[in-house]
C-alpha cells in the first residue's frame, strides 16, 4: 500500500504514476481492456459513478471487483433481481427486543465501492433507491439521513435494454452516472491471451495486489480539484453539451450535470496523464462516455439502429475545438 503521510501535497505527476500502476495491476486480471479500465479509473478520480454496459460474459463484474481489490476499498455487491426491495439496498430499521427500540441495520450501500450488478434487472422503484445515495452520498430512511462512506463509488453493470428480462434505467438515474463504459468483445489475439493466462495460473481468477487505500483515493481527488482549465476549453465543453440539445436526432439533450461531469472527467484525465492542466484532447476523448447515456434519441431512429454513441461521435466531429491563439475576449479579460 502506498499511503502518503501528506496526501494533499501530491503532484499530478505522482498521482498519474500511482494510478497508472493500479491500472497495470488490474490489467493482469482484466485482459485486453485498457480503455475500459482507464475510463473507470477516471470515474474514481473524478468522484463519480460508473455504468458499465454490455452483453453478459464480457468481464463487467470482474472489472468492478478488480478495482475494489487493487484500490483497497471496502467492497459490497448487490445482485439486482426483479424481487429486490429498496430496503435491501439502503437498509432498514428492525425492532430490537432487548432494548425495545428500532435499530437501523445498514444495507450494502454503506461501503466504499458498491457493485450494483445487473442493475437493470430490477424494477425502477428499487433502482431509484440508489438515486439519493449516488447524488448526495447519503441515505434517508424513516426520516433520518445517514451519510455514506467517503469515498463512495457505485460501479453498476447493465445489460443492453433490448436483452431479455431487463428494465430500462430511468433518465434521472442514468444522469447520476458520471460516465458509461462499454466493454466490447476481445480480439481473437486478446481472447487467446486471456485463455492462455487462465490455463497458466491454474486458478479461476488472478489474485491482485492491493496498491492503494481509501485515503489515497481521497488524496487523488484533491489533486484533481487543483487541475486548471482554460476558459476556451470550458466554452468548448459547453458547446458540446449545447449541441446535444439542438441536434435534430436527439429529443432530450444532456443536462447541465452532463457538462459538470465532462469537465471533471477531463480534469481527471489530465491527472492520469501527469498534467495539472486540461487540453482539448481530454474533453474530446471523454465527450462520448460522459454524455452519450444522458441523451435520448427520437423514437424513429431506433429502427435505423442509430445509437447515442453514433450521434455523439458526429457532434464531436462537428464542434470546433478552441482556436490556436486565444480569442480576443479571453486575451482582453
Amino acid at each position, binding site marked *: 500500500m502506498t499511503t502518503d503521510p501528506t496526501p494533499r501535497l501530491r503532484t499530478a505527476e505522482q498521482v498519474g504514476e500511482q494510478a497508472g500502476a493500479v491500472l497495470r495491476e488490474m490489467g493482469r486480471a482484466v485482459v485486453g481492456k485498457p480503455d475500459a479500465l482507464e475510463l473507470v479509473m477516471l470515474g474514481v478520480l473524478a468522484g463519480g459513478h460508473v455504468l458499465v454496459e454490455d452483453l453478459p460474459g464480457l468481464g463487467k463484474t470482474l472489472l468492478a471487483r478488480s478495482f475494489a481489490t487493487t484500490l483497497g476499498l471496502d467492497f459490497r455487491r448487490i445482485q439486482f433481481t426483479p424481487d429486490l426491495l429498496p430496503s435491501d439496498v439502503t437498509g432498514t430499521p428492525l425492532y430490537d427486543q432487548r432494548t425495545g427500540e428500532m435499530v437501523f441495520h445498514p444495507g450494502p450501500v454503506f461501503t466504499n465501492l458498491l457493485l450494483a450488478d445487473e442493475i437493470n434487472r430490477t424494477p425502477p422503484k428499487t433502482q431509484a433507491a440508489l438515486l439519493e445515495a449516488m447524488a448526495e452520498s447519503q441515505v434517508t430512511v424513516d426520516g433520518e439521513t445517514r451519510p455514506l462512506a467517503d469515498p463512495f463509488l457505485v460501479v453498476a453493470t447493465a445489460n443492453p435494454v433490448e436483452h431479455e428480462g431487463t428494465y430500462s434505467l430511468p433518465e434521472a438515474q442514468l444522469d447520476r452516472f458520471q460516465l458509461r463504459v462499454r466493454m466490447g468483445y476481445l480480439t481473437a489475439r486478446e481472447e487467446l491471451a486471456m485463455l492462455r493466462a487462465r490455463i497458466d495460473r491454474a486458478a479461476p481468477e488472478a489474485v491482485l495486489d492491493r496498491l492503494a487505500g481509501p485515503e489515497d483515493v481521497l488524496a487523488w481527488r484533491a489533486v484533481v480539484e487543483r487541475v*486548471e*482549465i*482554460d476558459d476556451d*476549453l470550458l466554452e468548448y465543453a459547453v458547446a458540446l453539451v449545447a449541441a446535444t440539445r439542438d*441536434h*435534430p*436526432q436527439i429529443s432530450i439533450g444532456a443536462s447541465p450535470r452532463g457538462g459538470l461531469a465532462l469537465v471533471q472527467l477531463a480534469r481527471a484525465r489530465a491527472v492520469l496523464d501527469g*498534467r*495539472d*492542466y*486540461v*487540453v*482539448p*484532447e481530454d474533453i*474530446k476523448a471523454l465527450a462520448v462516455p460522459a454524455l452519450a447515456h444522458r441523451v435520448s434519441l*427520437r423514437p*424513429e*431512429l431506433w429502427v*435505423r439502429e442509430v445509437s447515442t454513441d453514433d450521434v455523439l461521435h*458526429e457532434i*464531436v*466531429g*462537428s*464542434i*470546433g*475545438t478552441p482556436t*490556436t*491563439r*486565444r480569442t480576443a475576449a479571453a486575451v482582453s479579460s
Partner: protein
Amino acid sequence: MPGAVVAAGVVGALAAAALALRPTEGLLHPGKGPLGQWGIVAIGSSVVWTAGVMAVVGRIRLRFNDYRAVLPPGEERLREIAAPLLLVGAGVVGVLTVVLHRFSRGARSAAPPIVPTQAPTQPEPSKPQPGDGSRDAAPPWSLPLSVLLGLLAVLVVVVVAVAVVRRLRRLGLRVPQRPALAGTVTEEDDARLLLSAVRSGRRALSDTGDGDPRAAVIACYAGMEDALAASGLPRHASDSPADLLTRAVEAGLASGPAAPRLTALFREARYSSHPMDTSHRDAAADALEEIASLLQTREGTS
C-alpha cells in the same frame, strides 16, 4: 420542408414544359429544332453528355459518401434516395437520348410514317420550295449559327449555375471537401510542404523576438499549423492538436520526435498558467531546427 416543396415544384414545372413542347407527331419523331436534322449532333451530344456525367460523378461521388451533415430523419432518407438517383439518372439520360432518337435517315428508309402529312423525303434545307407550307419546310438554320446558339446556351447555363451556387453558399451550403487520396503525394512534395511549414514557424518565432516566450511558442505552432493547412493537409475545425499531429505524421510531413515535442510545448503554453521562460522558447526553436535538419536529410537522400 421548403426544400422538398421547391424540388417538387421544379420537377412539376419541367414536366409541364416537356408536355407543352412535345412534338405532336409522336415521341420518336426526329426533332424539328435547329440541330434535329443531323444525327451526328444527337450522337455526339449524347456521348459527350454521358462521358461528362461519368467524369463528374467520379469526382463528386467521394464527396457524397463523405458528406455527413446533420439532417432530420425524413430529410436523411430523402437524401439517401436522391443521391444515387441524381448520380445515375444523369448518365442514363445520355444513353436514352441515343436509344430513343429516331434519326432522319432511318426515318426515310423505314416504312412510311403513320402521319400522312409527314413526307418521307425532306426538301433541301438551303432551297425552300416556294409555296410549300412553312411548317414542313426545313428550318432555315445553318450549322455555324446552330453552334453559336448552342455555345450561347451553354454560357447561359454556366452563368446561371455559378449564380445559384454562389447564392447557396451565401445561405450556408457547403460542398464537402474531397477526401485526400492516399499515395497521391510524392516524397518531394512532402519535403517541399514541410519546408514551407518550418519556414513559416521560424518566421513566427522570430517575429516575437525576445518578448513573451509563451506567445513565441504559440505563434511558432500556429505558423506551422497554418503552413500545414495551406499545403493541403486536411484540417477540420474539430481537430485537436493531437489530431493534426497524427494526420501530419501519417502524411509523412512530421516524422521524428520534434513535432510531438513542439505540440507538447504548445499545449503547455496555450492551456496552462505555468511560467514560461526562454528555455521553452529555445526548446520550440530546437524542435523546429530538428524538423528542418530532418527535412534536409530527406532532400539529400531523395
